[in-house]
Each structure stands twice: as structure tokens, then as C-alpha cells.
């Protein structure tokens, strides 16, 4: 997939899952890889479990356009309730999806309805399903690394950047001092920092999650005709 010039991504999740953080880190990853990115966060009241969307454009060329991504070719769903409960600014979650798109859903069970599957099949989409939260718990020991698992899976499947670019971006985000986080995000930052004795350990745990998702992405073929690809964690 790497030769494609441009990806327009929509990330939908719930407050506290690191949706906006993922967008920031993705932007830095692409910058580190000498590519271009722009990102737009979108949220209402800033609280846990409230719908959050973030949009990321990634390209090998400079990006001129601004604003939200209305017609994505990649969608990431961080929580099953985005699909099942409509916890999203975009309803249904695949509104505006372009043909041949990639959808990654964090879930341990099938969440797509028959109707969803019909629409997505017609658009020749590929849905990759895996329990990112379980993976984060298993490897990093905290569900706060769920966003790392989701981002790792995306970058593993698209081959947009290498793990070195990601490590640099994650390091900047959690160990650097140039990033200004919102109040809620700052609180979660300190929560995850307390979990690890040293920030280096936090970084290592995050990278372990990402490396694992790269392995999983490597082992799977998403070029086939099947709509849903289920990955075991």
C-alpha cells in the first residue's frame, strides 16, 4: 500500500482513548519520515467516554487543504460503541467512505450489522478487527496503550513509516517538552507516567505494543476478497 500518494484518515473513538494523541503522534511520524501530514481534532465537551474524532491527512506531497476529512479512505474505530451505540460525530461511522478503503476496529467481537457489511462490501472495503485493548493490557500492562496498538496496526498495514520513525515520535510526545496537552490529556499523561517507574519504561512498553502490531500486520494478507479480517491477540 506504501506507494499511494495520499491517505485521508478519520479516527473515531471515545474520550480518554487517545484519539487526538494518536493524530499528533501520527503527524510527527510522517514528519520524521520526510513526508507531510496535517491533523484536525474534533471534540465537544472534554470528558471520558464522550465521542471524539480526529482527522489526519498523510501524503508524500505538501498538503494544501484544511478542515475535517469528509471522505476518508482510512477509518479507525477505537471503541465498539462507536458502531453499536452511534457514539460518533459521523453517523453511520462509514459516512463518506471512499471505495477500496481500510477500516480498523478495536473489538473482541463482531460489531458490524448485516446492513453495514452490505454497504462496506459494495465499497470493496477491508475491515481489520482485533482487540487492541486486550493487546495493550497483555503487553504494556495498561489499556492506556490501546491507541499505540491501533496506530501500530495502521502503520504496519500501510507501511507509511518505519518503527524508527514511530519511536522518535512517541519519544517526542511523552519524553519531550514541546507538546502542550489539554487538561484531560495531561491528567491521563500523569496517570500513565505513574504506572511506570521511569519514562523510558513507558516508551519501551509502548514500542513493544507497536512492534507486536507490526508483526501481526506482517502476517496478514488484506488483499483478498473477504470483508472482515479477524486477528487473534
Amino acid at each position, binding site marked *: 500500500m506504501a506507494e499511494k*500518494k495520499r491517505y485521508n484518515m478519520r479516527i473515531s473513538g471515545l474520550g480518554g482513548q487517545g484519539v487526538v494523541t494518536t493524530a499528533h503522534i501520527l503527524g510527527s511520524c510522517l514528519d520524521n519520515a520526510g513526508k507531510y501530514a496535517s491533523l*484536525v481534532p474534533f471534540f465537544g465537551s472534554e470528558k471520558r467516554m464522550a465521542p471524539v474524532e480526529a482527522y489526519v491527512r498523510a501524503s508524500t*506531497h505538501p*498538503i*494544501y*487543504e*484544511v*478542515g*475535517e476529512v*469528509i*471522505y476518508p479512505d482510512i477509518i479507525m474505530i477505537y471503541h465498539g460503541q462507536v458502531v453499536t451505540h452511534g457514539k460518533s460525530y459521523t453517523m453511520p461511522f462509514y459516512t463518506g467512505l471512499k471505495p477500496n478503503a481500510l477500516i480498523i476496529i478495536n473489538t473482541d467481537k463482531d460489531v458490524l450489522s448485516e446492513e453495514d457489511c452490505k454497504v462496506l462490501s459494495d465499497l470493496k472495503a477491508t475491515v481489520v478487527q482485533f482487540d487492541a485493548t486486550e493487546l495493550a493490557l497483555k503487553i504494556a500492562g495498561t489499556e492506556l496503550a490501546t491507541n499505540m496498538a491501533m496506530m501500530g496496526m495502521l502503520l504496519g498495514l500501510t507501511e507509511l513509516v518505519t518503527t524508527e520513525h514511530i519511536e522518535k515520535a512517541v519519544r517526542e510526545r511523552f519524553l519531550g517538552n514541546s507538546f502542550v496537552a489539554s487538561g484531560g490529556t495531561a491528567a491521563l499523561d500523569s496517570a500513565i507516567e505513574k504506572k511506570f517507574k521511569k519514562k523510558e519504561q513507558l516508551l519501551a512498553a509502548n514500542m513493544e505494543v507497536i512492534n507486536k502490531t507490526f508483526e501481526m500486520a506482517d502476517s496478514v494478507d488484506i488483499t483478498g476478497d473477504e470483508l472482515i479480517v479477524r486477528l487473534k491477540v
Partner: protein
Amino acid sequence: MSPNKRPVLNKKEVEMNYLLKEAPREQHFITGAQAMSEAVKRANVDMAIAYPITPQSEVMHLVGDVFAQGHIKEYYRAEEELGTMSAIAGAARAGIRLFTATSGPGLIRGLEAIVSWPGHRVPAVLGILTRVINAPLSIQPDNLEMAYMLYSGAVMLHAENQQDTFDFTLAAFAITEKVDVYIPVAVATEGFFVTHAKGYVDMMSEDLVYKPFDPVAAPVPAMDNETPPARIQRDAPVQKSNFMSYLIHSVWQQEIWDSNSRAMKYIYEYLGGPIEVQNPESDIFVVASGCAAAQAREAHRYAQEEGLSVGLIKVKAIRPFPKKEINEVVKNAKALIVPEHNIVGWLSTEIKACIPNGGIVVDGPRVYGGMTLPVELIMYEIYEALGIEHNMKL
């Protein structure tokens, strides 16, 4: 006025041409609001006046910081937007360089005073960071308010991105003070998409500053003890006969619009012209101003990648409107697609009115209420105009 001691800065005073075209620049990653205040920092502004009504941008807040750092001599916090704009007119009579900025409802509230500025020969720079002006409430960047400015007599520039916002604002200070212009210059850009988003801006050192305003060289004398207000008031047109009042008003306003036209040569001098054209030999053009030009630029690139005969016209100057320049480029065009961030389509109306075959203008795509203008909507119109089969479901 201020009891607080402020830093005295030693800056090198230079001409606008040197500042804009020759001074070495360094790249910064800043918001559009920062870009505008950075331009003000280098413009040797004597006085900033504001009362930012919500929704505003951060511009006048940042200009307050610029004042505190010593780059501006005075900052007056007015009562509200009508007070702000009236204070600008009053302060102009003292022969000083002035800056204010406003947004959406604030602009509309100040409009009564603003439309009197050109007739009063007020050389000020007005930043317009567009916001929704009508109900239901939204604080997003709809640019309908610019339509209300079109017949004010002011020169109007529309910036595409953060870099334009910086360059246009600086150039505006030189244009507004030209003896053969001497009317206000408005620099507009979209709120949020440009003002709140970061982009790359090449800026010259802040040790350089535009040469100070020279009230002696100005075509309207500053009021002081030699030229007291009463002396001017004595000859007020309304104190003459009705006939004199009509006559003075009519020749006066003709002169204002001539001044507006004469600003064009300075738009060429400082900004390289009122329009930017890509692929001038194309069959169809996307014509856009402000932030819509960024979306149009993206659509233009997609069209190039698909080998389509599509050009781009970015309209930088809304007043004076580049009639001659647009006509020259589009004389063989088959369709003009005009994407806009407002419901009325003021830009497409302007374009239709200035070409002999207005029927080639495609009305839209338009988004309003401050919605994102998807590039896909422009591509859809391109395919339709070229008669290309597509399966875009938008």
C-alpha cells in the same frame, strides 16, 4: 498615557519593498493569528484599538503582547466594536499609523463607522478573521461578512493561508498610506481554518521595521494646533445648501472609488498582482479566494495528476476587483468553478458581473456555517464541467 515603563526597541527602519522582497527570511510554524500579529510587529504601528467581541480571533490579544513588548506605541481598549471603529477614525485625524482586527458579529456592529472610513480618508489596516454572523449561532468561519464590506470603498485583500496573512497585512500598511490611495485596507482570512491552525510562514527579522508614518507627507493634514478641528468643521458640506451637499458627496465618493482603483498598481508592486494563475491555457478554471483557494489548489493538483485541462485562479484582491486580469485569463474558458465559504456566493456574483459570458460560471460548490469545504466537491464539479463519467457519491 500608560504609567508602566515599556521597553525601548532599536529597530532598523526600511522601505516596504526591502521588507517584503529583499530582507532575508526564516521559516516559522505559526497560526494565522500569530502571522497577522507578527506582521503588525514589523509595521511600526503607532496605535492599536480593539474591543474583541466573542467570537474573535487571537489577533488583538497577540497584538496586545506586541504592544507590551514595545513594538507599538499605544493600545486603546475601546468600549465596543462601534466604539473601536469610531476611535480608529478619530485617531486617524492625529496622523498616526493604525491597526485593528475584528470578526463576524463584531465587524457587522462596527460597520457603520467602517463604511465612513474611506470618505473620511482614514488610512488604517483592518484585519477580518471571518466568522458566522447570522443565526443560529455558530462560531465557525463562514465569510458572508465580507459581502457587507464589498461596497464600503475599502481596499480588500483575501489571504489563502498563514503566509498570505503575514505578507498581505504588511503590504496593507504601505498601500493604505499612499498619497493617491489613502483609504483603509482590509485584510481578510478565514477564522479557525487559518487563524487557529498552524502553517509555515517565512518571516524577516523583527529587528527590521517599516519606516514610520509621515503625517506631513499625507494628503489629509493631521489635526494639531496649526490645523484645529474647528477649521475643518467650518466647511462641512451639510452646512452648505442641499445642492452643495449632493455635489460634494458625489465628487467625493467618485474620488474614493478612483482611489480604490489606484490601489491596484501597489497590489502589483507589493504582492505581484491581484490574481495568481496556474495553467493559463486550460479549458476550465477553479476560481477561489481566501481559504477556499487552498482547497482549490488541492483540487487543481488532483486534476493535474489525472491529466485534466484544469487551471487555478486565486483572487488575492477583492477590492479593487481584478476585472481586466480575470477577463484576460478566462477569455477562452468553457467553465469557471467558484468554491466559496458562504451561502450567497459573493465571489461568483463578482465574477459573473465582470465577464461577458457569465453563463460559464458554475455556482459553487458552497459550504456555509463554517463547514469544511471538501476537495471532493470541487472535483465533482470539475468532472461534471468536463463531461467526464464518474461515480462520486457525495
